């Protein structure tokens, strides 16, 4: 039997969770004050995931970088691979919220999408 202590992040309360694992299975979650806490505790010890946000380079845009995010959460273990893969990406302006940068990132089936509109740098702005 193994016990893991976690801080629940589902809401600002930050309940201190104690997750009991027996034979690789979550036996119980204690310390939570709502259903979401129990689900979080279970997920965080069996299949932790994160939404990754970073920036990628933009060519010819009004700004040199554009923020992006994974369209949904990816396994926590894939976060650094995701970041490394996005370091190599350069997009061509203009780009708009929701545009797909990569269709499948870091061995997942999850896309990476643009989260801010960046217009093309027009000649006028150079003056």
């Amino acid at each position, binding site marked *: 039997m193994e016990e893991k202590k*976690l*801080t*629940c*992040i589902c809401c*600002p*309360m*930050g*309940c201190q969770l104690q997750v009991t694992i027996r034979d690789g299975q979550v036996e119980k979650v204690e310390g939570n*004050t709502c259903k979401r806490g129990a689900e979080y505790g279970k997920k965080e010890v069996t299949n932790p995931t*994160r*939404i990754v*946000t*970073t*920036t990628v*380079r933009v060519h010819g845009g009004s*700004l*040199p*970088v554009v*923020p992006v*995010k994974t369209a949904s959460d990816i396994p*926590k273990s894939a*976060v650094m691979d995701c*970041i490394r893969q996005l370091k190599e990406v350069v997009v061509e302006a203009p780009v708009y*919220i929701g545009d797909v940068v990569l269709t499948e990132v870091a061995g997942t089936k999850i896309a990476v999408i643009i*989260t*801010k*509109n960046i217009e093309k740098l027009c000649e006028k702005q150079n003056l």
Partner: protein
Amino acid sequence: MKTTYDIVVIGGGPAGLAAACAAYDQGIQDVLILERDKELGGILNQCIHNGFGLHTFQEELTGPEYAKRYEVEAEKRKISCLLETMVLDISPEKEITALNRKDGLFTIQAKAVILAMGCRERPRGALNIPGYRPAGIYSAGTAQRLVNIEGYLPGREVVILGSGDIGLIMARRMTLEGAKVKVVAELMPYSGGLKRNIVQCLDDFGIPLKLSHTVVDIKGKERVESVTLAQVDENRKPIPGTEEEYACDTLLLSVGLIPENELSDKLGVQLHPVTGGPVVNESLETSIPGIFACGNVLHVHDLVDFVSQEATMAGTCAAAYVNAGRTEETEEIPVKCGSGVRYTVPAKIRPACMDETLPVRFRVGQVYQRASIMVRSGDTVLLRKKRPIMAPGEMETVYIKKDSLSPDNIGNDITISIEEE
């Protein structure tokens, strides 16, 4: 150019945008937003992480996405905006002096003004950190702008002082960009940041958080070479012999936010000694009738959703003021801070002017577990709310019902206090 407007909003961040839209929706369509940056959205534009909008949109958005939703709302209503425009002065008669490259120096007459200028980071100069003044010391928000908007990495080996949310977010951001964040030091015995950020920005990357620690020395003449931390005692004084030196090239400061009220101060609105923002009533109206305030200029928020809610209320109340042409003179009850409560917004309530329920936001002075929020007037308990945990870093809200404030119920004031069980 047009020089009169019903409502002028100072600042085009989340507060200004929501306030302008709300005023429009209440029938005041002659609204102008003045924004000093090149684009609307304010600081949300550099907050590229997710977690915004859970309350407002029931989904997790990034900062720029959240900002865009409100920009689109403002565009739909064809609300006028002047970008790259700096407001220099607001008079009590609501004449606004501003300037920009296109129009030069100009004045605009408003019937009502909504202050939505946001806040600023506390700088190194406010901390009295000894040591040299080399390059490599940034406020966390400056570093955030450099990385997320301008595409520069401001350092490779980083120490962060202050565990406010921006400091925590930047610990992760610098790590993802390839920098080594060696430690986050926090002067207080608890973090001022959200739990979620401590878990996902520090714990996920094994970055240590040293509570009750501060910076006692910065070495390096041209560029930061090392930062020395020491533990502090209960009076927040460094304990000799606990010093630890960290070799690094960058120190980020995330040591508090201050509402940006130079304009409000010059205008003559009464400022609150604790929040640094204007003192407002239940309509979010300052001590000068027809001047309203919302968002981080009023008091620093943790969640943008609450900024948007507050700003919607300010916009609605400003529109009501313009429609009525004046502020109603009626009985006003002060909201006092009892034990454990640092401030409340609003700080006074006119029962005749409030909605059916009024959100009163406040912060506690220390961490409380299993305590109750008590709202009293005289001997009457108006409200009692149990809370499993409260912390200074997380804003609390109580909703006061209008019908609980009947004349036989209320005394000379309303007091909000924290009572431990």
